[in-house]
């Protein structure tokens, strides 16, 4: 899962990025509204965390611009403005969730995971595919009821496949949603990760659609 954080306060942006990476998210940080808008408009993200009081361009205007440009990524507004009229305005501008500063990191992470899950069309907090089960609130996978240990890259690839289970996920899309913006991407690395995942969950669960991408399937 790849998340865009648009926050001008250096200390908070850094701490946020560290906390989200510790939860195995791929994180890009923009420090002003102009950069933030550009990244959100050109890159593929699973969600964005957007501050409202930004230099360069106000967060509300960034959000409104994304929406008019047809960007549907889930957006969580993170702001010190805690009046209900601000929240109403935020949701009306197209936000999907709203969190006021200060906040607990675990709350933010849970809300982000829930946002991504709902955006993928899953109403329940647990997503299952055959013996594999994803607990969205905890961000953990179980295989046959036993916890599955995954590296960050493995987790990101598997959540992408899991949230679109039984559907082909394009390779390019996978690469975009797994690596951070400034990462060196080896064209073979996704194959390597998928190979490692197959060894962990059984090779039949991940089908290769030759030349296009991968599909997670319960094998029916």
């Amino acid at each position, binding site marked *: 899962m790849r998340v865009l954080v648009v926050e001008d*306060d250096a*200390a*908070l942006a*850094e*701490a*946020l990025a*560290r*906390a989200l990476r*510790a939860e195995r998210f791929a994180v890009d940080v923009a420090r002003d509204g102009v950069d933030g808008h550009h990244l959100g408009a050109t890159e593929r993200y699973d969600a964005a965390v957007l501050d409202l*009081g930004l230099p360069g361009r106000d967060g509300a205007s960034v959000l409104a611009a994304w929406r008019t440009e047809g960007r549907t990524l889930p957006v969580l507004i*993170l*702001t*010190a*403005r*805690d*009046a*209900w*009229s601000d*929240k*109403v305005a935020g*949701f*009306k501008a197209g936000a*999907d*969730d*709203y*969190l*006021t*500063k*200060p*906040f*607990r*990191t*675990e*709350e933010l992470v849970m809300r982000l995971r*829930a946002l991504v899950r*709902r955006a993928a069309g899953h109403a329940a*907090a647990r997503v299952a595919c055959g013996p594999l089960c994803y607990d969205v609130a905890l961000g953990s996978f179980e295989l046959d009821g036993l916890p599955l240990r995954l590296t960050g890259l493995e987790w990101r690839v598997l959540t992408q496949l899991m949230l679109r289970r039984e559907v082909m996920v394009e390779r390019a899309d996978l690469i975009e949603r797994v690596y951070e913006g400034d990462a060196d991407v080896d064209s073979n690395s996704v194959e390597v990760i998928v190979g490692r995942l197959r060894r962990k969950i059984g090779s039949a669960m991940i089908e290769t659609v030759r030349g296009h991408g991968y599909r997670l399937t319960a094998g029916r």
Partner: protein
Amino acid sequence: MRRPRSLWARLLLLSLLATAAALAAAGWAIGGVLERFATRGLDDRLDAQLMLLAGAVRPDGSLGANALRVLPGFDAGAGWSWRVVGADGRVWRAGPVADLGKVPSPARPLPGGSGPGGSGPGDVRVDGPARPRPLEGRDDAGRRVHGRALTVLTPAGPVRIAAAAPRALAEQPIRAAMAPLLMSLLLLGVALTAAALVQLRLGLRPLRDLRLALARVRAGEADRVPGDQPTELAPLAAELNALLAENAAGLARARGHVANLAHGLKTPLAALIARLDEPGADPDGSLHEQARRIDARVRHHLGRARTAAGGTPARRTVPIALPADDLIGVLARIHADRPVRAAVDLPDLSVAVDAEDLSEMLGNLLDNAWRHARTVVRLGAATDGAFAIVAVEDDGPGLSPAAAAEALRPGRRLDERGDGHGFGLPIVRELAELSGGALYLDRSDLGGLRARLRLPLSPGRTAPPAVR
């Protein structure tokens, strides 16, 4: 004397003084004119007598006896008299009290003295300006007399002629005219005073209207005083409106400062807490506790600043349903993973509360209900006299009376978990009280908490069904 504090009294006093002075001046002037007329009639008769006597003076300075006989009945009226002092000092006189000895001598020495002068012998000529001089004095009986005196020069020397009549003859018509004169002046004074009162009442009405307009602004029924004032008040109204606008701008600035302060404090606090959330940063949770206390203080004071900034202006008519619909939509998304539905039954009611404040009150109550509800949050409203009662209920665990009282104490938060939305009950109560309403907490028939907001209805709204 202290100057009167009332503008009305001051203007009235000035008008009364001016009227009194004008009437006094008019009375004095009219009296003077009357007196001159009455005196002139007397003078004409006295002067005729003087001229007759002067015509009877012979060149030797004596009075011709024949001439005396041709005089008309000058002495007929009581108190009329005349006297002629010849050049040799002989005295002729007539009248019941004919002694004019008290009549003062001419103050002016006779021109040419008793000398021969330049005039030819045998001439009798009237001295200087051929005008008799007035005399005032008393006769032998002590009555005041009015007389005329003339000096005639003869070759033998000056002959002094004087004639007098009772002063009362001149004063009587004046006295007779004075009573109606004073009466009409008095009536005029009363009429002018009444006119001044009417003028004051009409003239000062715009001042009263302006005061009422300002009172409406203070009551929140208007945001400025009308500009179409009389010329003298228009600048005052403009100044007042400028002051009101400045006030509103200052208030907006203050709210802006509060928002900036919130941002300024909360972002570093958020960074601090994010750091503390990192593994091993705060093993025993004591630093989190400190951060939580800072957060609680910041929220408390920002909430207070917001309520202090609210209330004052911009009290408007807001339909309850307007923010309620928005808030329910927002809360359904914030709590998207909770299987809670909203049961809304709002009649068309509007309350006289600042829109932002209403949104804050309803937002906090609904959020609280959503947080604790198991399946349903109910929002309803009814009227109670001049008030709307808005009820927010849930089917959660509810609060005991003691816990409800505790929940309303400022700075307390019963629900310490979550992202802090549950902090709002004391602020809701404060906002409700600032708007002239109240907040009550009790148990809902759904089983959970029932929070009831009592808010003033906007004036001019008809009352739908009463509280169930």
